C-alpha cells in the first residue's frame, strides 16, 4: 500500500516512522529517508517550496506505483511539504518496507531519485541579501539513468 501526503504543515518524523514500522509488521526491513532544509551559507532565512497542486499527488503516486512493480514492497510512504520552511525543518520523507533489506533500500533510493527530478516541486532559498531558485543538479538527472 502507498500513502502519499503533500502538505504545508510540519510532520513528526518520529511518530511517522514509528507508525509506518508498526503498519509494516511482517516486513522485516524498513528504510526511511528524510530531507532537511540545509543552510550551506549561514545566510539562509527560509526555504519556499512551490508545487503544482493538480499534478503533485498523481506524479508521486505514479512513482510509488512504478517502485511497487520493480521491488517486492509491503508498504511505501511519501510525505512532502510545500510553503515556507525554516532552516533545519523537515522538508519531506519517504519510507519503504519489504521482506529483505535490498528491496527496501533500492526502492527508497528510487523514490528519492524520481521525487527529486520528476515530482513538481521547486525550491527557493530566501537569504538576508536576496532570494534564488535552487537549480536542478545535473547529478540528480543523471541518477535516473541507473534505474
Amino acid at each position, binding site marked *: 500500500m502507498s500513502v502519499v501526503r503533500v502538505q504545508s504543515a510540519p510532520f513528526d518524523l518520529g511518530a511517522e516512522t514509528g507508525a509506518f514500522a508498526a503498519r509494516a509488521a511482517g516486513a522485516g526491513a524498513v528504510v526511511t529517508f528524510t*530531507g532537511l532544509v540545509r543552510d550551506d551559507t549561514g545566510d539562509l532565512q527560509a526555504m519556499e517550496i512551490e508545487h503544482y497542486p493538480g499534478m503533485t499527488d498523481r506524479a508521486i503516486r505514479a512513482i510509488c506505483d512504478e517502485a511497487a512493480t520493480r521491488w517486492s514492497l509491503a508498504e511505501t510512504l511519501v510525505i512532502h511539504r510545500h510553503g515556507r520552511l525554516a532552516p533545519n525543518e523537515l522538508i*519531506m520523507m519517504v519510507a519503504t518496507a519489504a521482506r529483505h533489506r535490498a528491496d527496501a533500500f533500492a526502492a527508497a533510493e528510487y523514490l528519492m531519485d524520481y521525487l*527529486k527530478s520528476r515530482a513538481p516541486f521547486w525550491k527557493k532559498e530566501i537569504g538576508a541579501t536576496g532570494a534564488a*531558485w535552487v537549480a*536542478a543538479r545535473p547529478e540528480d538527472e543523471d541518477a535516473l539513468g541507473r534505474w
Partner: protein
Amino acid sequence: MIDVLYFAWVRERIGLPKERVETDAATVADLVAELKSREARYEAAFADPAAIRVALDQELADFDAPLAGAREVAFFPPMTGG
C-alpha cells in the same frame, strides 16, 4: 481555449501563475512561439527552451506534443523536489 500555468521563475518572469489563452496552436512549441511573439516578458521566460519543462493535463510532455484535446498546459523549470 486552454489554461496555461506557470511555476517558479517562469511564473515570476511572466508575472502571473495562470491565464486562459485563445489559441489555434497545434503543438506546445507552437503555443510557446505564439506567446513569445506577444510580449517581451514571454520572450524572456521562454528564451532558453532547454531550461523549461512542460506538462499537458498534469502529465510531463514534450514541446512537440499536440495540444488538441488538452485543457491545461504548464511550464516550469526542472523540478527540485526531495
